[in-house]
């Protein structure tokens, strides 16, 4: 859902912790136990009130829905705005602001029937005009929004009546429902936008369960319960307004300070780091929730550069990577799960059958393949290239602590097969600028995208000069990517992604490493917290014990 570079620290603290937009839960993921409602029935009235305090690692910078991809902002959008559709626990998409919809025969036109009688929190009515206004604004000013690309495909929008909204696309586009279910696709109040002269960075008004109350820059943001709210998401028992009176996001940039704040009761929810899990796991004041993240971290090869344009070299080095060791050492076996396949197991399209194609850790095989390719080692020294020059591939990665640790470990793992791996850590802004120039040999980073169409972002030919950081371009894969984007039949579509993954795993532009796992401590004062199958926390039924 978040499209920012997968900064691990950010991820742990913010990702999916407070479910923003709709949670996804692929069928293949074993359901985590969801929390049973407390046995004693608590009367509705006594559930009302209280403040729920959450740590945010940064300010959201702006709350202009169309002009940011900031992770804190995206979480807050989930509270303030509602979307037309949401993803239910069974991964299907259902109507939220839309009651229902139909798809035309050529799969290019979507006609939404909207719910009637809903109001924005400024009192203006929700209708088809508001939806059209919102998406037109997105097309106009939304270049910084993660779903901007999706709406480039939208050619026109119609509003035959107040309750009907028609979306016309240039070509069929399967991921559109996913994109429309993210919090970035919330619906704005046109009257509020006009009143603010289009400057809505601090004036967010939607139809959501909470409304913006106060924002002290660099300190906190307070959201206040929308008493008129009606809940349409099927998995909630509470069909009305939320019980918790206020949500407060406190900006606390330091992990140590965040922990101290959790201990002191200044915040009620925090994503934990591995070393803190044992301590809080045994603390009766907190309950620890596990949740998967939508994405994974991979080791990529710059396939535009010799000798990594040769799949055999990529495969040989892929065998040298010990993912389990990375998960054990860097994440203490807790905050990550090793991944076989390009699509993480938290995302639709993952298929455990693909495991047989994984280039599993096998140092002997790696050595043997490297020998066979002519990378011979001098006595005890590192291997040299077939042309006799030293073989010292350079790994580029961000300067995050986690990536630094993984890079150090990879150095040791490569050394074990005689390869002298060099590491260059760049600040993420500089890294993004460096990779399209193909300065790197290897690349270590993550993606964060809850849709199998991540292929078109990170491994397609037309992204070679931008987000395809391994500069991989394969016409066979290209065909599969195109087919996956336009196929609206779910079963057929997922089969396409199985093929795409198989191809990628054999060609090895990526060696998938691990999926980050969140461990979130939530104060036990907060009752009736629900959990999606992917682990995302759902708070609409929750209340604060008095």
């Amino acid at each position, binding site marked *: 859902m978040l499209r920012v570079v997968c900064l691990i620290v950010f991820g742990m603290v913010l990702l999916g912790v407070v479910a923003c937009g709709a949670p996804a839960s692929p069928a293949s993921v074993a359901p985590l136990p969801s929390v049973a409602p407390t046995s004693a029935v608590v009367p509705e009235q006594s559930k009302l009130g209280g403040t729920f305090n959450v740590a945010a690692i940064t300010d959201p910078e702006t709350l202009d829905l169309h002009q940011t991809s900031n992770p804190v902002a995206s979480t807050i959008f989930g509270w303030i705005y509602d979307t037309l559709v949401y993803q239910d626990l069974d991964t299907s998409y259902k109507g939220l602001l839309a009651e229902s919809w139909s798809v035309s025969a050529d799969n290019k036109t979507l006609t939404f029937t909207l719910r009637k009688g809903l109001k924005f929190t400024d009192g203006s009515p929700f209708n088809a005009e508001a939806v059209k206004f919102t998406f037109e604004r997105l097309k106009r000013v939304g270049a910084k929004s993660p779903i901007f690309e999706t709406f480039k495909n939208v050619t026109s929008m119609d509003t035959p009546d107040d309750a009907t909204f028609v979306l016309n696309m240039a070509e069929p586009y399967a991921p559109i429902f996913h994109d429309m279910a993210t919090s970035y696709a919330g619906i704005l109040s046109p009257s509020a936008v006009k009143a603010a002269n289009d400057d809505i960075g601090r004036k967010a008004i939607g139809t959501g369960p909470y409304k913006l109350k106060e924002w002290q820059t660099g300190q906190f943001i307070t959201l206040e319960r929308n008493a008129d709210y009606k809940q349409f998401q099927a998995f909630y028992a509470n069909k009305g307004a939320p019980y918790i009176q206020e949500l407060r996001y406190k900006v606390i940039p*330091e992990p*140590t300070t965040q*922990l101290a704040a959790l201990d002191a009761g200044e915040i009620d929810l925090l994503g934990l780091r591995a070393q803190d899990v044992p301590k809080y796991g045994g603390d009766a004041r907190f309950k620890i929730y596990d949740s998967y993240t939508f994405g994974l971290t991979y080791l990529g090869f710059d396939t535009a550069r010799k000798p990594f344009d040769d799949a055999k070299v990529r495969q040989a080095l892929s065998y040298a990577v010990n993912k389990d060791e990375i998960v054990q*050492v860097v994440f203490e076996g807790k905050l990550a799960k090793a991944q076989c396949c390009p699509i993480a197991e938290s995302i639709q399209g993952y298929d455990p059958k693909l495991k047989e194609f994984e280039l599993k850790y096998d140092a002997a095989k790696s050595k043997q393949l490297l020998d066979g390719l002519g990378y011979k080692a001098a006595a005890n020294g590192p291997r040299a290239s077939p042309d006799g020059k030293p073989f010292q591939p350079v790994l580029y990665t961000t300067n995050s602590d986690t990536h630094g640790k993984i890079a*150090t470990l990879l150095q040791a793992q490569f050394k074990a097969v005689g390869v002298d791996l060099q590491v*260059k*850590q760049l*600040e993420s802004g500089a890294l993004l600028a460096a990779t399209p120039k193909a300065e790197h040999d290897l690349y270590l980073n993550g993606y964060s995208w809850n849709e199998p169409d991540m292929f078109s972002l990170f491994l397609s030919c037309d992204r070679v000069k931008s987000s395809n950081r391994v500069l991989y371009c394969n016409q066979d894969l290209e065909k599969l990517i195109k087919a996956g984007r336009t196929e609206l039949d779910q079963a057929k579509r997922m089969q396409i992604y199985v093929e795409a993954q198989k191809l990628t795993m054999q060609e090895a532009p990526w060696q998938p490493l691990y999926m980050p796992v969140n461990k979130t401590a939530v104060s036990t004062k907060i009752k009736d917290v629900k959990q999606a199958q992917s682990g995302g926390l759902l708070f609409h039924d929750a209340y604060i014990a008095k």
Partner: protein
Amino acid sequence: MTERAATLTLPQLIEQPATHRSWLATLGRRKNITLGGIVLVAMIAIALLAPLIATHDPLKLVVQDRLQSPNSAHLFGTDTQGRDVFSRVVYGARLSLGVGFGVSLSVLMVGTLIGLLAGYFRRLDTPIMRVMDGMMAFPGIILAIAIMAARGPKVENVILALSIVSTPRLARVVRSVVLSLRETQFIEAAHSVGCTAQKIIRSHLLPNCVSPLIVQISFIFAEAVIGEASLSFLGAGAPPEVPSWGSMLNDSRVVLRQAPWTMILPGVALTLSVFALNLLGDGLRDLLDPRLRRR
């Protein structure tokens, strides 16, 4: 590092009574040099002999030994990745002192040259000094971070960044010495017997700058040590594989509560080095540069 700026814009003001110099006080000053010198030499020895002194490989990750409190195997415990804190601090001396020497040397060369040019050639004075003013008005840490971002995490770049930040100050000191000498009789005499500018600078002005330079350099050295640690602390310093006191302190931030020992030794080492350099600077100023003291 920026917090220190105020001191250094005021080198003339700092310290030292001119009168009432009892033998005790004089001895005290000599003690400054002795103590500072001993600590500094010890630090240099530690840096040079690091492989002999360190008990462990400073880079080796031993996962099962993560965050051990001080014990007989690890005198000062281990860090988040099971590396020996003591050994890393020992190796960290190489980076800190190396950067200190590098910065001192380059600032000495470039700063002196700029100061001489500005002080001696009237026409160059204003433009050069305006540029120096601008550089001093520029927040040093931002400049340093930007240079590091532009050139990547390498030790050479740390030296470059910190040198650029420190150069204007030294240039100012040299300029003021040259200015005060320019009008004196012996320079005029040198002029009148037809000495070239180069000759006058080399054999008359430069020697007079030596004392203030030595004093300034000891402070610039101290600044550079703190500067390197600050940059590494912010994650914009030396590459991660080089043990650095600053990055050790940065790493310790996340385990402040579970493993306070990870922050003690690097901080002590850092303080001790800067302390020695400050003592040395004080002592040297007193010994070499009575002129600065009186103004």
